């Protein structure tokens, strides 16, 4: 087949406007498709997190600004069997509703941060963070979006921090958060929330049943002044994003529509190309090209355009996803849109599949050309 590559490439270039338009259509389709898949992958990553972390929230509260748990609940919870650590967290966000530009501050005891989060500091220092109460470590996605670097002063509302470091995390959703000192966040905005926190994060022994521990926690505080609602971290985050989950589910149809449009576009181009070359295909068959060979030539043209266009769209999407730090947030939970190997491979496979699908009918039409009538065709 490689022997025929010059013929295939030259044939595609013969109608370069048509080929480039088809290529561009394929690129745009896969570009949009990648964003759709990235959104769904982000949601899957968020909601399938390890069950060995629980989030204790105030019962019947949904926005972090309305949840006020006793900070000393951590001592009670830590005594339960199977609990390895409890981290009190104060959450502040500039927007509780769904948005693309939400800034979320997580106030945690500074000494606990490194033990409960596997962050890699890309710039700055942990000691700078731990020794300065108004210091914060910023996720690289936020740093990119807001153009932050170490040493900058950064304000959202009444909260102003000094950037002590920029971190990366294997859990890319974390890169949309800013971590600062718990007490700093409790005292800021003129409020004195010392003694209360938004939530407790409970680290469990992987061997224990998280549902059982969650029930124990809620049972312990039932009937008290502040009742709790405890869930696994994945479930908690899915519930926070509940408004978005259905919408994200609908984007699945958008992705299908992109692929459908791409298929129709390439199919149309292929049919036009075959109709333009009825006589040429008859000449090829006269020379000795079999119907199967003609079929494979048309298929190769189709797959080449589809793959090249699709790959270009994928590369462009990966670039934007990698460098833009886009995240969708709701109720202080962020869903990161990031590139991934799975996304890339899925996109490339679908580009080939679309090329094959869009090539079959035109290729069959060309392969079944009756030679003599086609040679007489104008």
């Amino acid at each position, binding site marked *: 087949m490689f022997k025929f590559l010059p013929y295939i490439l030259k044939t595609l270039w013969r109608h370069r406007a048509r080929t480039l338009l088809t290529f561009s259509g394929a690129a745009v389709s896969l570009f949009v498709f990648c964003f759709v898949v990235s959104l769904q992958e982000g949601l899957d990553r968020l909601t399938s997190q390890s069950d060995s972390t629980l989030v204790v929230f105030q019962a019947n509260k949904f926005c972090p600004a309305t949840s006020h748990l006793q900070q000393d609940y951590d001592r009670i919870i830590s005594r339960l069997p199977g609990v390895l650590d409890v981290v009190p967290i104060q959450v502040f966000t500039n927007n509780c509703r769904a948005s693309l530009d939400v800034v979320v501050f997580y106030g945690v005891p500074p000494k606990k941060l490194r033990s409960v989060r596997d962050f890699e500091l890309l710039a700055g220092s942990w000691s700078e963070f731990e020794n300065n109460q108004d210091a914060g470590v910023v996720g690289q996605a936020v740093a990119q979006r807001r153009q932050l670097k170490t040493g900058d002063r950064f304000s959202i509302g009444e909260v102003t921090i000094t950037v002590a470091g920029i971190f990366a995390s294997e859990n890319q959703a974390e890169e949309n958060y800013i971590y600062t000192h718990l007490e700093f966040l409790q005292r800021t905005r003129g409020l004195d929330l010392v003694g209360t926190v938004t939530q407790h994060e409970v680290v469990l022994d992987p061997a224990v049943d998280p549902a059982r521990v969650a029930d124990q926690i809620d049972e312990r505080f039932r009937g008290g002044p502040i009742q709790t609602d405890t869930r696994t971290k994945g479930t908690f985050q899915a519930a926070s994003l509940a408004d978005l989950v259905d919408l994200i589910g609908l984007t699945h149809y958008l992705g299908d529509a992109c692929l459908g449009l791409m298929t129709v576009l390439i199919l149309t181009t292929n049919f036009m190309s075959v109709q333009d070359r009825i006589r040429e295909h008859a*000449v*090829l*068959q*006269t020379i000795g090209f079999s119907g199967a060979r003609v079929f494979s030539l048309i298929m190769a043209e189709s797959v080449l355009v589809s793959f090249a266009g699709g790959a270009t769209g994928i590369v462009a999407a990966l670039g934007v996803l990698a460098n833009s730090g886009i995240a969708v947030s709701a109720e202080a939970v962020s869903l990161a849109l990031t590139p991934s190997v799975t996304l890339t491979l899925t996109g490339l496979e679908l580009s080939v599949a679309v090329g094959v699908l869009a090539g079959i009918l035109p290729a069959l039409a060309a392969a079944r050309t009756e030679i003599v009538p086609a040679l007489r065709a104008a």
Partner: protein
Amino acid sequence: MLIEIRNLTKQFRKGGETITPLKDVTLDIDRGEFVSLMGPSGTGKSTLLNQIAGIDRPDSGSITVAGTEITHLSRSRLARWRAEHVGYIFQTHNLIPVLTAYENVELPLLLLPFDRAERRRRVQVALDAVDLANRASHYPRQLSGGQEQRIGIARAIVADPTVVVADEPTGDLDAATSEQILNLLQRLNRELGTTLLMVTHDTDAAEIAGRQLQLDHGRIVEVDRASATVDNLAQAK
């Protein structure tokens, strides 16, 4: 005998009417013969040519070329057979416009088990035979009509086929260019021993062949078996 045709019949339906351009045609062509087939338009000359070339099938009868009975070969095997045994010279040359002269001539060889070096050698020989080696990198749009037809001839002979068929090879050319093409065909037959079957409605062109046949109401009529030379062509003019 290289080509044996026995009781060949071909019919078409046209506007509710059945037309029989070929009716019980029987014909033998020996290896190395240059045969011209004449007759007015619509008498079935090209139809017979297309049967022998394997791009059309008869309704009855048999065609045997170099020991292979081709009328019952499958579509794919017939394509394979054409690649190995037939060179086709079209009236309108039908070069592939996106390929250079070299690539057009090389096209049949891509279907056969030759490596790149062997393909290059054969293409060079074919281009030399038609005196167009210096135009190898030119595209059809950069060639004259006569040059395009010569490239078409080179493409037809490059794989050293068993038989070369030519369907009105000078039909689209002026007199001077036609003479060039006919001389070339005659030279190929004489120097390479190529078996040639040429369809033409031009008596002058027909006379250069060593054997002339006429198609008359679906049947073959032998016209002349005298050997043709360049002088015969010039005298006829």
